[in-house]
């Protein structure tokens, strides 16, 4: 008898997609509980326990604090054990006076002026990350727009245009113009007659002329109309100022060869759709808001060493930093563990073999940031860049300009280098091998190739390397499709009295939203189990 084939959910969806098309696959995904905008509806309904129940939560990041907040509201007794002397986890903000000694013993010293800061971890919120934004609304966290795409910011290649950075808007509009011209020519020559009807052809040609700013012969050329779209070499003025002069497009071939078009694709990501947001005053405003709700149940400086399970509860052993590291125990009916897998895998945990394999299976991604403070906002004053992100093929990968304090005088901070392993690039590993001072030196050496003002205006720098943080040993769970098929479901399932939460238990790795949704999902399942 043949063995019945029981596909994984992913295999099943792929089969549906192949047989019935993507619309059917999407529908199936929705009924299986993925897709459909994260499944978050905003109405968490916990029944609460039928009798006194204690929930011990490990980790005071956003997942742990959200779990504590919601479970306490539902009537559970909650307590959070946190290793660090602070709440917030990987959501943190560095300001002047902050010091952090990373693994390897080097100290990161942040000496920024009052009001300036940088976010080593999450730093911007997509508009569709509804759970995070809902809690921000509920807790009164003030939001401001985060400028992700700024057409005045740059794309840059050390190998193109003599290393001179180009404006994002120019590259994008020139590519649109050139592609429109090519498509227009093709349509006029009848090359696409098999694909478009005569009526559609006329509509398309008409549209391309507008969209690509083509002339009457469907050519992308300098013109007054193009000035109104692409900008000017001499901008329209007043009175007797010089005559307006529209700017000249960049030719197609050098543009294609430069690789700058590819860099503009960075902004295509759904996560980066405008408008994005950030909390006023630093990303830790979000986790501080959670902490205001649950601070009374957080025990800081508690280093968990063992998670033991019995048939009807958990016993967690920890070193209590407030009592000179004395080993203590904490018992509860349930444990929600948000410790990153990289660290959890090194602890003594009672769980199924399958879950132990899952915990040990997920590599933690490399990521780093360098922030530099300058005496003045030369990017605004000299280069007319108000917020946004510049991309480059230099190892610094991107420079992010502050989306706050526009036009202000005095020192300001650039996020002067940032990359993660998600892009699969080598650079983030190399940055991670450097001392804090070396990272600043390298960020200055590369950055001055884009902004020559660096040398005259530099004041101080700070940085962060996630692989040199002992409580995360990397930045986020670096899932692959293969790893998800093999381990994800096991990792998220309740294991007797233990359930895991955090960005690693989500389909949105590294984002606060993933962490939050995993916590909301975990507590809903615990509550159902409690009331089963």
């Amino acid at each position, binding site marked *: 008898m043949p063995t019945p084939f029981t596909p994984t959910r992913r295999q099943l969806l792929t089969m549906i997609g192949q047989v019935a098309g993507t619309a059917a696959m999407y529908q199936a995904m929705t009924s299986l509980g993925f897709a459909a905008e994260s499944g978050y509806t905003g109405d968490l309904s916990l029944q609460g326990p039928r009798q006194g129940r204690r929930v011990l939560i490990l980790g005071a990041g956003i997942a742990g604090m959200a779990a504590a907040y919601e479970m306490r509201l539902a009537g559970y007794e909650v307590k959070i054990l946190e290793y660090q002397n602070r709440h917030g986890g990987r959501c943190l903000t560095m300001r002047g006076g902050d010091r952090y000694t990373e693994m390897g013993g080097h100290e990161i010293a942040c000496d920024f002026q009052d009001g300036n800061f940088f976010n080593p971890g999450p730093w911007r919120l997509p508009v569709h990350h509804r759970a995070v934004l809902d809690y921000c609304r509920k807790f009164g966290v003030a939001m401001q727009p985060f400028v992700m795409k700024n057409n005045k910011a740059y794309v840059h290649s050390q190998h193109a245009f003599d290393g001179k950075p180009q404006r994002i808007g120019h590259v994008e509009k020139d590519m649109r113009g050139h592609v429109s011209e090519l498509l227009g020519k093709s349509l006029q020559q009848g090359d696409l007659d098999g694909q478009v009807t005569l009526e559609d052809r006329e509509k398309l040609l008409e549209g391309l002329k507008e969209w690509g700013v083509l002339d009457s012969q469907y050519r992308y050329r300098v013109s007054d109309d193009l000035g109104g779209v692409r900008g000017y070499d001499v901008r329209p003025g007043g009175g007797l100022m010089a005559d307006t002069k529209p700017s000249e497009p960049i030719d197609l071939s050098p543009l294609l060869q430069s690789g700058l078009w590819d860099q503009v694709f960075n902004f295509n990501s759904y996560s980066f759709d405008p408008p994005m947001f950030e909390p006023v005053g630093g990303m830790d405003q979000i986790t501080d808001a959670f902490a205001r709700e649950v601070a009374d149940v957080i025990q800081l400086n508690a280093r968990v060493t063992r998670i033991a399970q019995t048939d009807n509860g958990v016993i967690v052993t920890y070193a209590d930093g407030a009592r000179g590291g004395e080993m203590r125990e904490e018992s509860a009916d349930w444990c929600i563990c948000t410790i990153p897998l990289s660290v959890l895998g090194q602890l003594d945990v009672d769980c199924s073999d399958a879950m132990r394999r899952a915990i040990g299976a997920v590599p933690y991604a490399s990521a780093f940031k360098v922030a530099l403070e300058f005496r003045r906002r030369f990017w605004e004053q000299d280069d007319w860049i108000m917020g946004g992100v510049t991309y480059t093929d230099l190892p610094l990968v991107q420079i992010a300009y502050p989306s706050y304090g526009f036009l202000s005088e005095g020192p300001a901070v650039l996020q002067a280098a940032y990359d993660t392993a998600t892009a699969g690039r080598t650079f983030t590993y190399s940055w991670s091998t450097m001392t804090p001072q070396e990272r600043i030196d390298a960020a200055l050496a590369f950055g001055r190739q884009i902004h020559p003002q660096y040398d005259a205006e530099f004041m101080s720098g700070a940085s962060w390397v996630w692989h*040199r943080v002992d409580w995360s*040993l990397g930045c986020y769970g670096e899932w692959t499709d293969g790893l998800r098929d093999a381990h994800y479901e096991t990792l998220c399932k309740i294991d007797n009295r233990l359930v895991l939460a955090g960005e690693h238990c989500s389909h949105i790795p590294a984002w606060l939203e993933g962490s939050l949704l995993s916590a909301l999902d975990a507590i809903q399942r615990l509550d159902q189990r409690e009331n089963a």
Partner: protein
Amino acid sequence: MGKLWYLAAFALAVFASSALAQENAATADVDALLSRFSEDADHFTQTDGAALYRTTCQACHMEDAQGDAGVGAHPPLTGNSKIMSKHFVAGVILTGYRGMPGFSSMMSDAQVAELTNYVRTHFGNDYPDPITVNEVADLRPPENN
């Protein structure tokens, strides 16, 4: 007051004469530092084991390969019985190990061999059996795994 001014001027003069020398030294240091980055964003371009170690492994296992430990640990690469097996070391570089990411897509077999042999003969390690490029090729996982 006058004496203080004199001292300040003297200090400035001394500083100015040594500043140029310092600047030159700093430039050389920065060049060495920047050479740690690969020419290629997608693949490491260093070929010898020491340079590969310095631009990858050192991030976690540190300059002296002793690693470091807080609540979580990056293990030392010396006094570590796992290093005895060249296949284990090369395999870990290729596929990763627990929280450690693998490097198979960013390093060639020759680079993995160089790096394996470097780690196993430095930092106090002195294993006599180098791994060959072909042996690394046999360990390489299939792509897109």
